[in-house]
């Protein structure tokens, strides 16, 4: 432990002195530390851990020398904050790499992040809030033989906490900008792409024909002509196994299609997605958010307000079908509804159903047509936001949301369908000398689950550096519990320090549609982050 620190400090001092001596090498990095001192709070069911403390720390360093780059990420969970997996309770260098890059070729050896297409086939990424890091450890090659063709290859094992998973991943992906290749000048763009991933994990069980090797491929098209754009991506997944069942999991498919129409002041977007047996991990034994090979975010709108996020949809990778429509429109300045500054409206509607089929021993078998929409309703969300600037100092946002959330299926258990309406008023007033006050009032109304909620917040900022807040989420319908939080932050350039005290409700925390359960917690939090 101490040796690592000594080494780090020596390396750093060398780098720092080298920096002043010559200009050719460059060190950059970031540091993030999130800490909480917990207390027992029986009213919300919060139990403090034994030493009443949690701390997640990340130190990332990159050194660039000409076309070469090397870096590490040191992580210390001392112990991890509540809600993060206990397997993270350790410290060490979880990510290290060396890479070479010139104009047409990039080679990385060690840990790396990568994505094919939209990630529906393959995505290795990190999200610290989710405690998720499935970076590959191996080799990554990117090659551009001409300006309009790009190729990628990956090989390695995925990171699992401070170790790697058992399965090996190998994959290739190619993309071609067709019209550029054919030297057809114009405003249209046509990009064709395709990828292939193979996962291999030894199998010693009794089943014959067990797929220890899983093959997955994809094809995609991006076409833009004038104001319209169309994107289609299709993925086909071979038979797979999972340690939670003795059965072989049948073939899977995914289809994602987006159409958009955009012009000055108007954006319209239609999206459709169908998933069937698309859970794909690099190890059959993996659970929760471990070792995902593909990326299947919820294809619904991600909301900004706390009550609107109380019932977030999470992807049903075994089988779902649905889509969303999204509209953003600016009513011009100096019209009846536009007023002096113009009014902005955004509308969004999404709907997802379960794929019709049967589940035996945890394995899903579909029994519907490809576009069959007869399954149980999982989620429906209609929301509208109106943004209006009234004067140089005053701006407001109003949001209305009407949602149906199948809590029984999405979270498990016998919880039924929740129907809720959410109203949000968000107002910003700028005072003189860079001071500003933002207030938020939210109300969620439902007859199911936890019944009604009310939330409010005040945020006062002074210049770009200081900011203070107090907020409360109050369950008026059932428990009569207040979740009060208050705190402040100080920012100078790329350094931020923040401190807060209060309660955190148990529930799903979702980032980009991937969720983890956070337990109820209460106490004092403080964070420091710095980029350099």
């Amino acid at each position: 432990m101490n040796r690592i620190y000594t080494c780090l400090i020596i390396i750093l001092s060398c780098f720092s002195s080298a920096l002043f001596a010559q200009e050719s090498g460059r060190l950059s990095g970031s540091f993030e530390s999130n800490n909480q001192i917990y207390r027992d709070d029986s009213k919300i069911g919060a139990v403090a851990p034994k030493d009443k403390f949690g701390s997640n720390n990340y130190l990332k360093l990159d050194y660039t020398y000409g076309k070469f780059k090397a870096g590490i990420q040191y992580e210390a969970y001392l112990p991890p904050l509540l809600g993060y997996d206990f397997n993270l309770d350790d410290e060490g260098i979880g990510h290290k790499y060396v890479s070479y890059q010139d104009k047409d070729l990039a080679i990385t050896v060690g840990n790396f992040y990568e994505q094919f297409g939209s990630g529906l086939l393959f995505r290795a990424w990190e999200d610290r809030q989710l405690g998720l890091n499935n970076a590959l450890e191996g080799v990554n090659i990117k090659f551009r033989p001409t300006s309009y063709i790009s190729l990628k290859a990956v090989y390695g094992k995925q990171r699992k906490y401070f170790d790697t998973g058992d399965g090996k991943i190998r994959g290739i992906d190619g993309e071609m900008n067709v019209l550029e290749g054919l030297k057809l000048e114009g405003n249209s763009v046509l990009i064709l792409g395709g990828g292939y991933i193979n996962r291999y994990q030894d199998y010693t069980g009794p089943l014959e024909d067990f797929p220890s090797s899983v093959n997955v491929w994809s094809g995609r098209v991006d076409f833009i002509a004038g104001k319209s754009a169309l994107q289609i991506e299709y993925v086909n997944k071979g038979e797979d196994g999972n340690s939670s069942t003795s059965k072989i999991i049948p073939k899977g498919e995914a289809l994602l299609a987006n159409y958009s129409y955009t012009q000055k002041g108007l954006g319209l977007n239609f999206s459709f997605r169908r998933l069937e047996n698309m859970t794909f991990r690099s190890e059959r034994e993996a659970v929760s958010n471990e070792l995902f090979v593909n990326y299947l975010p919820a294809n619904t709108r991600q909301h900004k307000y706390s009550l609107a996020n109380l019932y977030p949809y999470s992807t049903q990778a075994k089988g779902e079908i649905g889509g969303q429509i999204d509209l953003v429109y600016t009513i011009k300045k100096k019209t009846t509804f536009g007023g002096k500054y113009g009014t902005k409206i955004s509308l969004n509607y999404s709907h997802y159903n379960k794929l019709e089929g049967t589940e035996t021993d945890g394995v899903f078998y579909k029994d519907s047509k490809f576009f069959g929409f007869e399954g149980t309703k999982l989620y429906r969300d209609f929301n509208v936001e109106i943004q209006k600037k009234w004067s140089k100092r005053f701006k407001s946002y109003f949001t209305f949301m009407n949602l149906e959330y199948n809590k029984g299926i999405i979270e498990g258990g016998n919880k039924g369908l929740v129907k809720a309406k959410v109203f949000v008023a968000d107002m910003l007033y700028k005072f003189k000398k860079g001071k500003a006050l933002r207030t938020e009032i939210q109300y969620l109304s439902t007859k199911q689950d936890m019944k009604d909620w009310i939330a409010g917040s005040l945020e006062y900022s002074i210049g770009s550096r200081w900011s203070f807040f107090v907020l409360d989420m109050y369950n008026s319908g059932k428990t009569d519990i207040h979740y009060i939080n208050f705190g402040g932050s100080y920012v100078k350039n790329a350094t931020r320090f923040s401190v807060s005290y209060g309660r955190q409700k148990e529930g799903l925390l979702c980032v980009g549609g991937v969720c983890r359960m956070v337990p109820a917690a209460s106490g004092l939090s403080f964070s420091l982050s710095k980029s350099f």
Partner: protein
Amino acid sequence: MKKLILTFILGCVIIAGVQAQRILPDVTVRSLSGEKIMSSTFNNDGKPIVISFWATWCKPCLSELSAFNDEYEDWFEETGLKIIAISIDDSRASARVKSIVLGNDWPFEVYLDSNQDLKRALNIINVPHTIVLNGKGEIVWEHTTYNPGSEEEVIEQVRQLIK
């Protein structure tokens, strides 16, 4: 606790030790029409560039871009700056980025960094994160988070560059 203190000390050593002129790294991002572009080729003919990292779900990011949008005409006339907005949205929302940009009629150059490669290469922790580049493409100033009114500080940095 001991480890924590060490971590903090280490953090401070680094913060104190590093002072070098940074430029944009060679990372591929995508334009709104899906074409690949190297971040090292961003340029504004020797005039300053402001880069804002944002996401569709990030409220302060949208406030910052909307504030830039309100001031853009005056700022451009005064300094000739270019504003580049880099969305770190992943595939969940990257299709919405184009509708938001055009629907709001933003006059920015917009790119998608959908697996956060550029964000990571610049060691950015959270969005919004704003960077000011001088005419030579060197990073001269950066700021994380957005408070209403902070845009004044950004343009002040740009003004000092063209003096």
